């Protein structure tokens, strides 16, 4: 069997075309529910230069469910980077301790640099505001599972579209398929101009709104993101914006029953807890799907899939 992913890195969704994304998602489906000890005796080096409990636990769960083990650190303060060791050297040292590496680091491009430093497969667990490809893959996986397809969907992104890395990466990947996009954001938090330029060059268009009430009723996917207080110099402006994007059972009533509500979590106040029991809610499934997606990736990159 051909193993096109064995030995590869998983750094950016940019590296994968439509066929490869579809292939990856098909492999994820095959991994659903299976916990064979495919990675018995293998070790994952989990290098978290900044804390991210969810991503780290999800990777550790995935590795352990496949019979593998993990080692690593959970923030830069406990790692030798505090002592001034370069990222390159850290990777060169750690590659001797493990078979595959997941790295989360605040510098953009750090995962690509790590991949250059070692022959071991490297997975990007988030590099600053650039990429978080395993999040993107689990988002795609969740959308496909809920909607039954990744094309011809009406998809809205709501919230902070300027700094939201998950949003950028997901939009890019969904652009591989024909879809209709809606962007809903407060005036100062639209997509950055360099990102819009990229979309324009691909011939991708979107409809922009300031309010969720303007979205079409037959919307398929509503992807909500957190708006962070620190993005607003004016606290009054923050309060106004925060309330305008608060999703409640009432505010989603007007949508059809095919609506799926997604959120990368953690949430603040933009998702009313009363929505948790709404049939369109999928944000906890989304988080759980992180494990099957990461299991699939670990197995494929280690040539055990």
């Amino acid at each position, binding site marked *: 069997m051909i193993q096109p992913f064995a030995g590869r890195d998983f750094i*950016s969704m*940019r590296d994968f075309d439509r066929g490869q994304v579809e292939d990856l998602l098909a492999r994820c489906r095959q991994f659903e529910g299976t916990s064979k000890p495919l990675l018995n005796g293998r070790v994952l080096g989990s290098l978290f230069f900044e804390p991210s409990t969810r991503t780290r636990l999800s990777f550790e769960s995935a590795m352990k469910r496949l019979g593998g083990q993990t080692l690593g650190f959970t923030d830069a303060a406990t790692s030798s980077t505090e002592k001034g060791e*370069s*990222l*390159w050297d850290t990777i060169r040292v750690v590659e001797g301790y493990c078979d595959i590496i997941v790295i989360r*680091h*605040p*510098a*953009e*491009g*750090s995962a*690509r*640099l790590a991949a250059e430093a070692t022959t071991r497969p490297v997975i990007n667990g988030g*590099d*600053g*505001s*650039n*990429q978080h490809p395993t999040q993107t893959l689990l988002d795609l996986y969740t959308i496909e599972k809920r909607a039954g397809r990744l094309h011809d969907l009406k998809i809205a992104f709501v919230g902070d579209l300027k700094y939201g890395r998950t949003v950028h990466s997901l939009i890019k990947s969904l652009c591989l398929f024909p879809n209709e996009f809606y962007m809903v954001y407060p005036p100062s938090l639209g997509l950055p101009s*360099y990102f819009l*330029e*990229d979309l324009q060059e691909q011939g991708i268009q979107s409809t922009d709104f300031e309010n969720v009430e303007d979205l079409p009723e037959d919307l398929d996917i509503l992807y909500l993101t957190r708006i962070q207080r620190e993005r607003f110099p004016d606290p009054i402006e923050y309060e106004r914006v925060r309330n305008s994007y608060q999703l409640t059972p009432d505010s989603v009533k007007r949508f059809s029953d095919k609506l799926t509500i997604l959120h990368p979590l953690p949430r603040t106040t933009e998702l009313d807890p009363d929505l948790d029991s709404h049939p369109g809610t999928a944000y906890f499934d989304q988080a759980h799907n992180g494990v099957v997606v990461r299991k699939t990736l670990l197995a494929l990159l280690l040539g055990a899939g």
Partner: protein
Amino acid sequence: MATAAMKEEEKAVTEERDLEVKKGRKLQVSALKSGTVIDHLTQGTAPRTLQLLDLDRGATVLLGVNLPSGKQGFKDLIKIEGRELTQEEINKVALLSPKATLSIIRDYEVVRKIQPNAPDSVEGLIRCVNPSCVSQDPLVRTHFYTERKDPLKLRCFYCERSFDKDEIDFI
């Protein structure tokens, strides 16, 4: 008679044109026995082009800045004595001056004219526009892909941020 007069006039015109061409050539390349002339540089880029080509030390170089040019209004020009630039070096010039033309001179004669072509990738030379990029670390050599040549658009190999010619910041 009429024919002879016309021929005479024609000859005069031709001679005058040849003289212009010679004068022109004199202006452009007479000082150069052999080497490279880089013409039609974007106005103001000559000093940076020299740095880019590592010519600010060693080689004998003549600089022309703010020269009148029909095509562009004003241009810069560089003459490099005794050195023929390689294609790779020439392509670097296109990063700053997409309209530049190069002439390789041997024994006062132009033996080759070259149109520079922006390189497919650039390593070193340029700083990433993104202050949070891992390549801001002086230990990391910067690396960019040319995503579009005209107008130039580069993308960082590391942080994936794209930027255009106006944002290029040479190291």
